[in-house]
């Protein structure tokens, strides 16, 4: 097995940052489902903001909460978001070229027929900051929530069937193993002369060649886990006990309430200042 670079920045870092259950920073101590609710509420609010400033403020607030509430370093927060710089640039270019208001909007700079309009910057900024909001919200959530706690919380608070919950957990365990397999298989086949050439045919045949060993391995592994779980009486009874129980405490409810209040305050202030736009103009 070749230890390789992570394909998904969230995946490997979540493993690294797994805190001891019941301890750690403020965000880590929050009930996962309640925390998820807060994230969803904020994300919903951001979805309906069509100006760049308000989402930018919420983005910065999210970072601040992640930094001081979740104990995440700025580096840990910003590095995974680097990819969105690129996305922001793409959005900007698309808007500069195709924004329908370019013709009527005042130009800040114009180079020949090419104009950088206020409308384009405004639209691009809005989209980009909303994107950053979603990304940072998920990042902070993932980085401060031990996956096993989330699963337990789904069972305890949302009444998810425990069989489905453990199925998900096993799947989660498998992801890094699959990733390792993929890296190894790619190397193993390159040694045999399977090229890295582009072109539809090559990509198709390569995918096919990787898929078979990858899937065979995954199916075999899944079967083994299933046997090992059955051998330890998994699913023998309709209910089971839990060593740890995820509970909703007063602090969790306060956290959601505070989140709602802060977001509402930001929206209100922004609306009063005439910045916020809640519809596409």
């Amino acid at each position, binding site marked *: 097995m070749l230890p390789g670079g992570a394909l998904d920045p969230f995946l490997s870092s979540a493993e690294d940052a797994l805190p001891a259950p019941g301890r750690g920073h403020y965000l880590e101590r929050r009930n996962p489902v309640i925390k998820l609710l807060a994230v969803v509420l904020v994300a919903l609010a951001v979805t309906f903001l069509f100006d760049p400033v308000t989402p930018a403020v919420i983005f910065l607030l999210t970072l601040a909460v992640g930094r001081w509430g979740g104990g995440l370093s700025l580096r840990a927060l910003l590095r995974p978001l680097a990819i969105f710089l690129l996305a922001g640039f793409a959005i900007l270019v698309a808007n500069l070229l195709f924004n329908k208001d370019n013709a009527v909007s005042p130009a800040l700079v114009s180079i020949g027929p090419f104009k950088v309009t206020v409308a384009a910057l405004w639209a691009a900024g809005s989209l980009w900051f909303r994107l950053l909001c979603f990304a940072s919200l998920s990042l902070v959530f993932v980085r401060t929530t031990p996956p096993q706690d989330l699963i337990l919380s789904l069972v305890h608070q949302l009444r998810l069937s425990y069989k489905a919950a453990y199925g998900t957990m096993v799947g989660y365990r498998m992801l890094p193993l699959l990733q390792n397999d993929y890296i190894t298989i790619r190397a193993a086949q390159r040694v045999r002369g399977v090229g890295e050439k582009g072109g539809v045919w090559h990509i198709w045949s390569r995918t096919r060649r990787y898929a078979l060993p990858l899937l*065979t391995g995954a199916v075999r592994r899944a079967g083994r886990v299933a046997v090992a779980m059955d051998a330890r009486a998994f699913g023998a009874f309709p209910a089971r006990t839990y060593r740890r129980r995820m509970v909703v405490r007063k602090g969790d409810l306060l956290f959601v309430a505070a989140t709602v209040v802060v977001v509402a305050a930001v929206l209100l202030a922004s609306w009063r200042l005439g910045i916020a736009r809640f519809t596409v103009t």
Partner: protein
Amino acid sequence: MIDLDFEVAPGEAVLVLGPSGSGKSTLTLCLDGLIPHLVEGEYEGEVWVAGLAVKETPVPVLAQRVGLVFQDPDSQFCTLTVEDEIAFGLENLCVESNRIDEAIDQALEAVRLPGYRRRRLSELSGGEKQRVALASVLAMGPSLLVLDEPSANLDPKATADLFGLLRALREERKHTIIIIEHKLDEVIEWIDSVLILDEKGRLLFLGDPAEAFYDNHELLEQSGVWRPQTAELVTGLRQIGWRVPGRPLALSDTVSALAATPGLLERLGERLRPRVGTDGWPGRLEARNASVGRPLLEVRELSFQYATGRLALQRVSFSVISGRFVALAGANGAGKTTLASLVSGVLSPEPGRVFLHGRDVRGLSPREIGALVGHVFQNPEHQFVTDTVRGELAYSLLPRARRRPEAHLDEKQRWLVDSWLERLGLLGLAEANPFSLSHGQKRRLSVAAMLIRGQGLLLLDEPTLGQDERQVARLMALMQDFQAGGGTVLMITHDMRLVAEYADWLLVLREGRLVYEGEPEGFLARPGEVDKAGLRAPALSEVSAALLERLEPGRPVSASLPWLTVPSFLSGLGPVETALVAPGGQGSATGGV
């Protein structure tokens, strides 16, 4: 599996042996009721465990009587942390949460991992993972432990630790143990009986290990099961006339038996005395001189750090002479796979570090490296790229063919492919999908697919992993043919018995540093070094060392016996008759069998 009928007494440790596909794993599932309760199939007969009829007893009840530990540590866990994993089984049994906490601590205590509660499973070593797997079944309070090749993915140190633990558990807690294991020399010390299955899953033998390995020659032939090295040595000695008493299997018993053999220690003294101070056995010196050639591979001050920050290799330098069979040994994580990957171009070394035929690999294209080096990965399935067995071999000759390379072969190439198929015994399966082959066949096919290209250097990454003895022998025969034809082998392994038998040069890595380069004898003669590298000397070299100690107490360990394999021991010692014909043993130094 068919028609099995046997009994195991409480507190007994039973070793299950048999070729791959003989139904050993099926047997384990029958014992804890997954067969017939959860796995469908044709099932006849009765299994009784701890007084319970398996067919009539529900799985959760059986789960408290029988604990299963499997081969692959990563595919028997379903949670992320040690404590959650151990709690898992108890939670399924609806044990109250306050009692679970206590049980976790006790289970961790039992497997000698106190303080591991909060550790993440992903950060444990293979050996630790297997112990957690054991703890998670122990927590459920079983009287019978069933282990299905628990050491297959472990290095020698971790294997020895695991077996030591099982031994202790059996004494402390009176567990009955049924273990499937290929590593005979390691388990023979502590098992009470052996159960041998044949290819079809029929019971060939159940009983005393000494009887199985000494009195049942035919049985062993039939089942393809090997002897422990100790039994092999004693049997060999008897064949050349030495009257070794008893039927020893354990190391200490064997040493006593050999010491009590009339004339053996004296002969040993005679044969060794003239050589004290020189390095190695004359026979080996010849082999060494014959193999001196140009360096095929040269590695200079090679270091490598992964993107994750892990420093895998530190200033490793060595060269491989053409025509050698080189073993690359070391504990898991010592950097063996990284080193092989840097040689074969899977990973890219810094310029000026790795040279093939005197050329820097950084100056070579992947295609050029591929023409010089074949790299056989651990899992043969990872390297299959076509849909048929024939296609696999054809692809190596025509890697640029878009589809069905076998259709584009010329006369000569077709003949070459066919002759390889015949050699592998796969002529009848030429059109089969490679994934449908048996494990041993897959392994040989993946090696052949490299050999057919005719590269001068073949890298093999633990090729014997998960193979039974017969398959290992067939694989090694392929390697020896390749070497005889002028090929050079670099094989990653931690099986020192294999190293002693086949390798003529040894490289040992420890934590990314090369700690030994030389003949295997030189390394195995230093038990301290072997230990530190996380390896284990073959049983025979331990027997040799103990005999030497008896012969000349206080002799420095570094001057240990150069006889590390059974054939070399036998030919080194010579048949008993020569001692009678020519007392003193002079003039018969080359007399062998």
